[in-house]
């Protein structure tokens, strides 16, 4: 990585946090409304273990939900790519899931699956991530090169062989795009569903209830760091898995 590519994002973040600090100081904003970055960092430094543990819990919830969503999306996507009737039958269900505000049914799901259990958190993360993953999987699989499909048909490839050798790799670019979109969403869903189960969401909910501004903003900043790390990891994974794809080879001048 050249120096400019490393320095540019650092410079952007320094400007952002400096502006934030200056804004809070200039308007004397209460910490509960918006804490200064320096104050948040000081607070995080006092309780590093608590926030690290909570971050790992939130990461686990989001990752497990993600994994469940991807597995289900690949199965449903394969069915959608294979049959236009089933695609038309599935689309409205996925659209309903996508447009229904998850925050409205979190409570009901938690009561149904166990208020202090991780299950409802993972379930809701998976449910909310499912539509984007499924549409991406179906589009990618359907877009597999027709001449390659025919080539595999010429040696009587089974449906599984076509899936493994052609459709799945063809769906990777759109699946990674969906994963990037879903990363932030999954973390937000996990945060909002975590009350009573540990994780940054629980810290945030308690801090909000107790009017603890520093604690609340420390949880929010931890979420932001978690999201950034997740996206960096996702980009590294994409580069490792999809080095053959034009998107991973093209460098902007």
């Amino acid at each position, binding site marked *: 990585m050249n120096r400019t590519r490393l320095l540019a994002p650092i410079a952007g973040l320094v400007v952002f946090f400096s502006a934030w600090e200056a804004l809070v100081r200039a308007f004397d904003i209460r910490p509960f409304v918006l804490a200064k970055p320096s104050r948040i960092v000081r607070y995080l430094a006092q309780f590093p273990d608590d926030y690290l543990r909570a971050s790992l819990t939130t990461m686990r919830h989001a990752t497990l939900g993600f994994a469940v969503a991807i597995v289900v999306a690949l199965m449903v996507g394969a069915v959608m790519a294979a049959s236009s009737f089933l695609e038309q039958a599935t689309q409205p269900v996925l659209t309903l899931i996508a447009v229904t505000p998850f925050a409205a049914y979190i409570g009901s799901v938690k009561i149904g699956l166990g208020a202090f259990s991780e299950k409802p958190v993972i379930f809701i993360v998976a449910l909310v991530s499912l539509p984007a993953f499924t549409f991406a999987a179906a589009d990618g699989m359907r877009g597999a090169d027709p*001449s390659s499909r*025919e080539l595999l048909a*010429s040696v*009587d490839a089974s449906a599984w*062989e076509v899936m493994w050798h052609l459709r799945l790799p063809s769906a*990777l670019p759109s699946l990674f795009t969906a994963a990037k979109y879903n990363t932030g969403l999954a973390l937000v869903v996990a945060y909002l569903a975590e009350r009573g189960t540990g994780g940054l969401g629980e810290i945030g909910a308690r801090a909000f209830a107790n009017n603890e501004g520093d604690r609340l903003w420390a949880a929010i900043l931890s979420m932001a760091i978690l999201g950034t790390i997740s996206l960096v990891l996702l980009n590294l994974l994409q580069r490792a898995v*999809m080095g*053959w794809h*034009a998107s991973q080879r093209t460098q902007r001048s």
Partner: protein
Amino acid sequence: MPTAVTLRGLRKSFGNLETISGIDLEIAEGTFVSVIGPSGCGKSTLLRVVAGLETASSGDALVYGEPAIAARRRKQVAIVPQHPGLLPWRTVRANARLLLDINTKANGSTTTDPIELLERVGLTAFLDAHPHELSGGMQQRVALVRALALGAPLLAMDEPLAALDEITRSEMRVMLNQLVEGRGVTTIFVTHSISEAVALSDRVLVTSPRPARIVADIAIGLGRPRPDDVDDDPQFFELCSRVRHALQEGAR
């Protein structure tokens, strides 16, 4: 010599559109047969029926005595499409063995090591390269190796050199002759190029405009092994001229 391909009263229609009209043909084992005809006449459809990728509307298409579709399923037909169709995520080495990795129970005893073939076509230095790192000619060489590695007795090629520049086409033509000659493989080669058809083939079948029927069957007596400079042979020009006239006659 045994018959590799038999077509009897072969017709093919797509809805009301008739693309092949009553073709009867026998191709002897080990011969290289080119099919040449006007654009859109149905010669690629003919190849697809022989390769078992399309069913005939009526008539028979037999490969070594069995229906073409059954032969394809048993990996008795290797296809080289117009576009190489290499999978971009697989290396050259992995692309070359793609057809061997699929439906493995149908692999016969005549399969050839794709690495050995890649060496023969001069791609040893590119075994771990991905398709985007290769030129068009190199990609087509990998597609050819992928088909030959199957060891199928019938090779069906659909304008495989059409997208290449003239110099690469000429090199590929020589390479194709060297690879196919002496292997006992029967080849059906669809092309638009008269010189390509004459330089490569033992027989050239000229088809009419759609619906395709065979209007001329020209034996190419240029001998085997075919010399690399066959296109300097006066007989080559004479044969090209015969094919051209047959095409013109067929179009009337």
